[in-house]
C-alpha cells in the first residue's frame, strides 16, 4: 500500500509570518495541522483546530494503545493534483495512517474510527463540485468501509467549523462547534 504514495517529505521552508495571540495552540496535546496526520501512543491527545470543510479522521486500537488523527483537506488522492503530499487527501491519509498504526503495534482488525468536520461553510455554493466538505466526508467513509474499519461515530456536515480533540487513552472524540461542545 505504501508504494502508492510517497510518505510526507520534509516540508519546504515556509515564508509565513506568524503573529497574534496563539494561546489556543497551548491546548494540551499534539496538534495536527491542515493536510497532516499524526500517530501517537496512549494516553497522548491529538488536536485539530478549526476544521472547516476538512475532515478530522481518528483511527485507534485501544488494546494496543495507539491512535492517530488525520486532518484531510481534499477527498481523493487520485483526483488530486499534488501527488507528493498524500496526507492531504482523506482516502490516502487513512491508508498511510493505518500502516503506521500497524507498525506501532496495532492489529488491523481491531482498529476503529470516528470522524468530524466536512462543513459547508459558505452560504452560496450549490454545485456538488464546490461542496468540498461533503465530498471529504464521503471519501473518508468509503475508504474506512473499504479498509473494513468500523466507523463508530461521526459528526459531519452543517455550516459550522469545529475544533476537535481525540484522546487515545479512551477513544473519546471531543468536538467544539462555536459554544456547543459534544463528545462522540
Amino acid at each position, binding site marked *: 500500500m505504501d508504494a502508492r504514495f510517497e510518505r510526507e517529505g520534509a516540508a519546504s521552508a515556509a515564508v509565513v509570518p506568524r503573529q497574534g495571540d496563539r494561546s489556543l495552540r497551548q491546548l494540551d496535546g499534539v496538534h495536527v495541522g*491542515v*493536510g497532516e496526520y499524526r500517530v501517537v501512543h496512549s494516553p497522548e491527545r491529538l488536536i485539530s483546530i478549526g476544521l*472547516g470543510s476538512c475532515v478530522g479522521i481518528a483511527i485507534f486500537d485501544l488494546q494496543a494503545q495507539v491512535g492517530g488523527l488525520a486532518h484531510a483537506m481534499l477527498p481523493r488522492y487520485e483526483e488530486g493534483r499534488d501527488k507528493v503530499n498524500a496526507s*492531504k487527501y482523506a482516502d490516502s491519509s487513512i491508508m498511510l495512517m493505518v500502516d503506521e498504526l500497524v507498525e506501532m503495534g496495532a492489529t488491523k482488525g481491531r482498529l476503529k474510527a470516528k470522524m468530524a468536520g466536512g462543513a459547508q461553510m459558505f452560504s452560496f455554493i450549490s454545485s456538488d463540485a464546490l461542496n468540498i466538505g461533503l465530498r471529504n466526508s464521503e471519501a473518508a467513509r468509503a475508504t474506512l468501509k473499504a479498509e473494513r474499519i468500523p466507523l463508530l461515530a461521526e459528526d459531519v456536515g452543517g455550516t459550522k*467549523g469545529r475544533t476537535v480533540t481525540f484522546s487515545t487513552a479512551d477513544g473519546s472524540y471531543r468536538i467544539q462547534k462555536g459554544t456547543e461542545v459534544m463528545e462522540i
Partner: protein
Amino acid sequence: MPDPILLDGLREIGNIGAAHATTALSKLIGRDITVEVSEHYVCETHQLPDALDDPEQQVVAVYLETHGAAKGGIMLMFTQDMATRLVDLLLSRPHTARELDEVDRDAICEVGNICASAYLGAVAKFCGTVLVPSPPGVAVDMLHAVLQYAAALAEADTSDLMVVRTQILYGGSICAGFMLYLPDRETLRLLDEKFKTV
C-alpha cells in the same frame, strides 16, 4: 522561489486594487475607509489557514471566485463588530451590537461584492483583460475554518500559493478587517507578462 519582480508587482497591484475597493466602499457608506500597504505571502496551500493571526477567532468572511480570463479567489474578513457596523452605516441606521442576521448577511455580501469588483477591475485593467467576481458567499466562523475552504479550492490549481493581503482601516486607524487575493497561475502569468514589458 518566485521572481522578486513579480512579488513586488503583486504587492503594488494589491495596493491599487484595495485602494479602488475602499474608495468604492467609502462612497457607499459615507465614512472614511482606507487601506494599509499590502503584504504578500508565499506559502503552500495547506499552510494558508495557519498563516494569519489567531486561528480560532470568529470572523465574518465573504468569499468570491474570479471568472473571466483567469481564475482566483478573493476573501474579505471582518470582525463581527465591524461587519455589523458597516451594515448599519450602509443602511443608515444607528449601530447596535448583535449577531449577524439575514439582512446583515445579505448586506455584508454586497459590501464584499463591491470591494471585490473594484479590486478585480484594477487588476484586470492592468492586465488588459476582463475579470469578474462570482456571486459572493458569506460565512461566520473561525478564521482557520474559512481559510481552509479558500485553500482547498486553490489547491485545484497550485500547491504554492501567492497571497496578497491588505489591511482595511476604519476611520483612519482602526483595523476593520482584511482582504486576501489569491490569484491563480494564469493570473500570475498575465501579470508577469505585463510587469516584464513595463
